[in-house]
């Protein structure tokens, strides 16, 4: 593949100047996706991600979108009010273990916690996978300091200031670190020692990047909190380099408005804040998809949504309940446990490039190995000989080999067939049966992942709508829903770059969590909780004011984690947006019992143990301007107007060949409807509508699949 290429983005409406533009940029592992909304116009662009200088790929993709809009790059940037970027730079630094030279100051007696890593054993029986967690900080750079705080927050041993300064001197002047993480026991309940140490270091070495652990999280559990601080230090150089370069290059290229960076928590932050807490940029792409989906879901009146995003290498799924995106609070980043709150996304190795193989027991499998974009599927004729999911789609005729990515990539269906034949031979299968087996397995893998995010948290997938996006998803969306018993599937407008589109409807968001462990028994305890809440809210509002938000554009959401006294795990519950009174307590405890039994089953609540509040959480949102997305008029088209061709395909679930209609996605106007079996081809994706399913385009240009009335 060559450099940036047009993605044949769709333009809806007429190009007319003067409108303000919003640009979403999702820098992914393979592609940089761009979505632009400019007045009533929308356009998308894709380019290959450029690892030596990410801004080149970004400008390339924005350029493609500009071209599709019929304007120049300069014109587009000159009228851009806000550009929101999601980047994988932070994820890459961690997965490649390539980051800054970090130093750690830790409570004396506990430096080996970074080696223990909260218990390194992987839940797999094979002894060969039980490796040590890598020392991303040189052992010589982990220095101990005399100090001790008790669980209650009470100081037991004062901080040794000489100890801090001497350790900092060794780390900075002798060992040459560029960042220091400060990791003290019990700092979740009292961060003053960490704060004191940070101030001492910052005063002496202002050029050093310092992260005290209580600043990234005030939640009990030393290793995940400390590791969050350490990883924040580890990625600070890469992140800063990226943030600066992108901001500078975009402004040099004529960007008029500001740049915001998207966080894995599901909202943006300013460059300044992102430089202080770069780790929050982790997982931004999938979070953008979830945020966009939730915005759309609100508009559609869907309050329970399961998300499915399938691209080239993986399938990502998450959950929205009551229009709240499920947040996971102790995310594991590679082998490292953290206390970072991120949009809960489960990722499995099921994408277009996932390879099919026969296991030792003679059982067919798909993934997690992927052929990626190099060598890619066998049909790419690029050296890949292993059968992939994409090859199976080609062999079944679901992909038109002559018109893949607008004809820019030539596909060799004979090579796809050869690969599948080799795969199916030991099972006694022909090419089509082999392709159908790949289809069934990949559907199973994805459906199991969706079960993991839903059933494992106590939700029944049948009560949800399935939102399907990403370039490879629309082939499988209907069948996954069928397996899970979901009645409605929504394939959003611009589904192939939907994560980038999600970036355009996001706000600034910050979150603070504080462990306080309270049984809420009596007015004094309630007052203590309210005091903590006041501080968290005030801190959040202050941060948002610093970001330039006025009081009326700031929103507060409160929640708390509850548990039965004696448990370690806790379940989150929303709280009213006000201080608590003693009168609220019985209701909260009753509600917790409900949530608990919904999650773990009837009869599991502990009858003798009182529920207690473990952590209080405040999420502060600063409302950003956003493009208005208008409904289009209903103008249903006749089948004949939308029909592009007819093609013989192998229907995977029916195991037979049939000639079915192929519709041109750009001609499927709002109000049009299509009955399966049929294909709807866009330039960068293909939607498969199975028999018994009807597809309708709505006024927001989504395609909604539903089971036909029996």
């Amino acid at each position, binding site marked *: 593949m060559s450099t940036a290429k047009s993605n044949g983005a769709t333009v809806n409406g007429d190009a007319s100047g003067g409108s303000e533009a919003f640009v979403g940029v999702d820098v992914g592992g393979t592609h940089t996706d761009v979505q632009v909304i400019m007045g009533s116009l929308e356009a998308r662009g894709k380019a290959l991600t450029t690892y030596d200088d990410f801004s080149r790929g970004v400008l390339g993709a924005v350029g493609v979108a500009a071209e599709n809009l019929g304007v120049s790059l300069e014109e587009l940037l000159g009228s851009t009010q806000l550009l929101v970027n999601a980047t994988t730079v932070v994820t890459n630094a961690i997965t490649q273990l390539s980051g800054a030279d970090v130093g750690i100051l830790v409570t004396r007696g506990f430096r080996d916690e970074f080696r223990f890593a909260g218990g390194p*054993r992987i839940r797999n029986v*094979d002894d060969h996978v039980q490796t*040590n967690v890598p020392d991303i900080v040189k052992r010589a750079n982990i220095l101990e300091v005399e100090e001790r705080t008790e669980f209650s927050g009470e100081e037991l041993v004062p901080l040794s200031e000489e100890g801090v300064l001497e350790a900092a001197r060794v780390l900075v002047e002798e060992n040459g670190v560029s960042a220091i993480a400060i990791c003290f026991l019990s700092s979740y309940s009292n961060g003053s020692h960490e704060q004191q140490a940070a101030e001492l270091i910052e005063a002496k070495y202002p050029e050093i990047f310092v992260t005290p652990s209580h600043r990234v999280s005030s939640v009990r559990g030393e290793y995940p909190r400390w590791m969050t601080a350490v990883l924040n230090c580890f990625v600070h150089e890469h992140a800063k380099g990226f943030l600066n370069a992108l901001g500078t290059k975009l402004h040099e290229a004529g960007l008029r408005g500001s740049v915001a960076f998207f966080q894995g928590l599901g909202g943006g932050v300013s460059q300044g804040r992102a430089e202080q807490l770069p780790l929050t940029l982790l997982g931004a792409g999938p979070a953008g998809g979830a945020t966009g989906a939730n915005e759309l879901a609100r508009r559609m009146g869907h309050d329970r949504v399961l998300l499915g995003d399938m691209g080239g290498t993986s399938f990502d799924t998450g959950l929205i309940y009551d229009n709240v995106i499920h947040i996971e609070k102790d995310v594991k980043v590679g082998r490292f446990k953290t206390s970072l709150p991120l949009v809960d996304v489960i990722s499995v190795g099921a994408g277009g490039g996932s390879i099919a193989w026969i296991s030792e027991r003679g059982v067919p499998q798909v993934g997690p190995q992927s052929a990626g974009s190099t060598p890619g599927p066998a049909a790419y004729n690029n050296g890949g000989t292993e059968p992939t999911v994409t090859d199976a789609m080609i062999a079944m005729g679901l992909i038109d080999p002559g018109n893949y990515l607008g004809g820019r990539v030539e596909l060799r269906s004979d090579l796809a067939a050869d690969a599948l034949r080799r795969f199916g031979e030991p099972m006694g299968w022909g090419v089509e049966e082999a392709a159908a087996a790949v289809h069934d397995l990949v559907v199973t893998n994805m459906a199991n992942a969706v079960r993991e995010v839903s059933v*494992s948290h106590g939700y029944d997938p049948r009560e949800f709508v399935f939102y399907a996006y990403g370039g490879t998803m629309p082939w499988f969306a209907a069948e996954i829903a069928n397996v899970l018993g979901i009645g409605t599937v929504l394939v959003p407008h611009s589904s192939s770059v939907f994560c980038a589109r999600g970036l355009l409807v996001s706000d600034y968001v910050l979150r603070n969590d504080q462990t306080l462990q309270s049984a809420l028994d009596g007015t004094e305890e309630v007052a203590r909780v309210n005091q903590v809440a006041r501080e968290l809210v005030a801190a959040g509002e202050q941060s948002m004011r610093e970001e330039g938000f006025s009081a009326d554009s700031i929103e507060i959401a409160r929640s708390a984690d509850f548990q*039965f006294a004696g448990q370690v795990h806790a379940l989150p519950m929303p709280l009213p947006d006000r201080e608590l009174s003693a009168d609220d307590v019985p209701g909260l405890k009753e509600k917790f019992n409900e949530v608990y039994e919904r*999650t773990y089953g009837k009869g599991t609540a502990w009858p003798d143990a009182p529920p207690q509040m473990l952590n209080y959480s405040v999420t502060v949102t600063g409302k950003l301007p956003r493009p208005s997305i208008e409904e289009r008029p209903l103008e249903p088209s006749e089948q004949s107007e939308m029909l592009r061709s007819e093609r013989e395909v192998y229907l995977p679930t029916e195991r037979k060949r049939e000639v079915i209609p192929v519709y041109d996605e750009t001609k499927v106007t709002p109000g049009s409807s299509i009955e399966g079996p049929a294909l709807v081809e866009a330039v960068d994706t293909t939607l498969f509508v199975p028999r018994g399913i009807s597809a309708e385009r709505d006024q927001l240009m989504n395609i909604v699949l539903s089971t036909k009335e029996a």
Partner: protein
Amino acid sequence: MTTTTHDPVSVEIHRKALENITNEMAITLTRTSGSPVVYEVQDFATCLMDTEGEHLSMSATILFHAGSSLLGTQAVIASLEDGEEVRPGDGWIVNDPFEGGAMHQGDVAIIMPQFYEDKHIGWAFSNVHVADVGGMGISGFAPGAVSVYDEGLRFVSTKIISDGILDRGWERHLQSNVRVSNLLLNDLRGMIAANNVAQQKLTEVVSRFGYERFVEYCEINKTLSEEAFRERIQKLPDGVYKTSEWVEFDGHGEDLLLEVEVTMEVDDSDIRFDFVADEQTDAFINGTRGVAYGSLMTTFLTTLAYGDLPFNAGMWRPLTINIGDEGTVVNAVPPAPLSAAHSTAGMRVTRAVKDLLNQACANSEDPVIRGRVGGMAADGVCLVPLVGIGRGGAPTVVFFMDNVTGNGGGAQSIIDGQDCYGITIGPGVGLGSIETNEASQPALYLWRKLVQNSGGPGIHRGGQGLEIAYAVHGTGQLDGAVAFTCAEIPSRGAGGGYPAGTGSWSATHGTNVIADLEAGRQTHEETLTGDSPPVPSNLGRLHLGRGDVIRVGGGGGGGVGDPLLRDPELVATDVADEYVTADNARAAYGVVIGEDGAVDAKATEDLRAEVRADRIGAKPASSQGLPETAGISVSIAGDGHWHCAYCDGDLGQGDGDWRQQAVSREASISERLAESEMHVRLRQGAGPVMIAEHYCPECAGLLLADLFPEGFTALHVPKLKRAGAALEV
């Protein structure tokens, strides 16, 4: 390759569905438990069994429950009277090691029948190491017990649940017989919840496939696992392998080492095990059938169930297990106490089977199987369950799990062993948070650190253990017991790798901790003062007052390959990282580190030559090279002779004992490892545990290090069919 008449895709979808069910049961147990034994160490298991009591799937949390789930479910089936019908919502409690397959009484199982429509289709098994089962031991551990009647409550397949509800009478009975009964009852409820989850999911799965097909696919999946397992067994050379391990106990005065001899006979794709063991004893270390079965299967899972070999009933089929005469330390009968059987007799079986598989793998013609040799994990635990008054004034059980996780894993043929690997049985094991422990219990941690030099030296070093020290803080006293199951006989290395160091424990009374805090100081290892009386490994009664300190350290995993061949740069890194000391580098690895921290190449070369000459009393005739597979030092070659893997030297006929050709040296293991600044507890009041090092007479490479109590002579070599050895068992 299997010739199939079924649809293999559907069969795999069916298997994954059952795997999902046992995983969802496990998630339910973890999230609902209030016991660190469950949420940290994940000391529980969830299984699905068919109506015959055969395994359909198991969660990979605690592996030896492969044995207790098999025998426990079969005990419930056997206890049903003729024609007795089981109903939805029925549930049985089982924790009896004699009749119910339990590892020890602390592991309590709830077993509930599963239905599809009105048809009984199988059993859900959940099992948790509960916080307490009553008796003189806390959390089921009674080092002071002399009979099983001193230990906790014992249930032999007792029906205590109807319509999904715990019987009120039994609930009251449990309440009045155990400490912190709410924890026990909540764990029982958690298990009921997990089994309910299984029922709900199973109904969905069976309806998806239809009953007939569901049952058919269960059988096909068992066969697929069986066939894959047999293919791997076929790659082990036919022959007879034998080894011995010793169960330690010193809590009743005498320092006992009880032998467990295990013979493994490989015949094509079948394996037979025969146990011959010392008589049972009046201490809590006696094992029963479930212990032998589960501990044995554990080693097969970690060594040979790599990649695509899901566990189910198919994996039992190639194995025949004869646990020998009744009344032994692996086949105990009442009144033998057995509340620590899992970590004494059980973990010795796990280690013995590792040695047997190492012998067989080393002689395999298949390179993948050869690569599966590995050092033993520490496989012993030091448990200190204590009771007292907790923060807030309520009674509490202080039972930190750090030292379960805090044991090193064995080095592997491809990598160093994992630090804090835990115990072989527990792939789900995690390390608890100090902050959580301090917030919930009256304790203040002084340190938690790696035990330097605890990993067995080798080309690949064994993983290391950790040590904790905490002071009684926030309460006046804690009382309890200590059970330490691996102090005198460390984990062995493989193929010329050295044994690891073992852990240790001590209590320090009348310390300076409180005075230090008042003076605004931390108390460190170097500054801790007080009275630390000598203690046995197992102690029935331990009393700690305010400010007293308990220290518990874990052991390491065995090394792989002769440490004289470890890359000196890796040794230097270990020294720089303070994983090993400079003296350990010198004595165990022959590596000299210069003042600048870099390897002194010349001095290292000289020292290694000196060590080799010293080993065989002469300058070696040939040079010692890296073996093809780290961990294989001696094996039978194509000529039917034993050969040294370092220099290819001939070590005699394959039907004889190659040790006769080797240069051998015997020493007390404690003294020998002390030369490398490593710790192994010296046996008290009886002959010491010995290490016999056997060197190649030509290159002086370490071929094997045997471990045994002084005076033991019955060392074995593999008897391979292809070497013409006589195969009588």
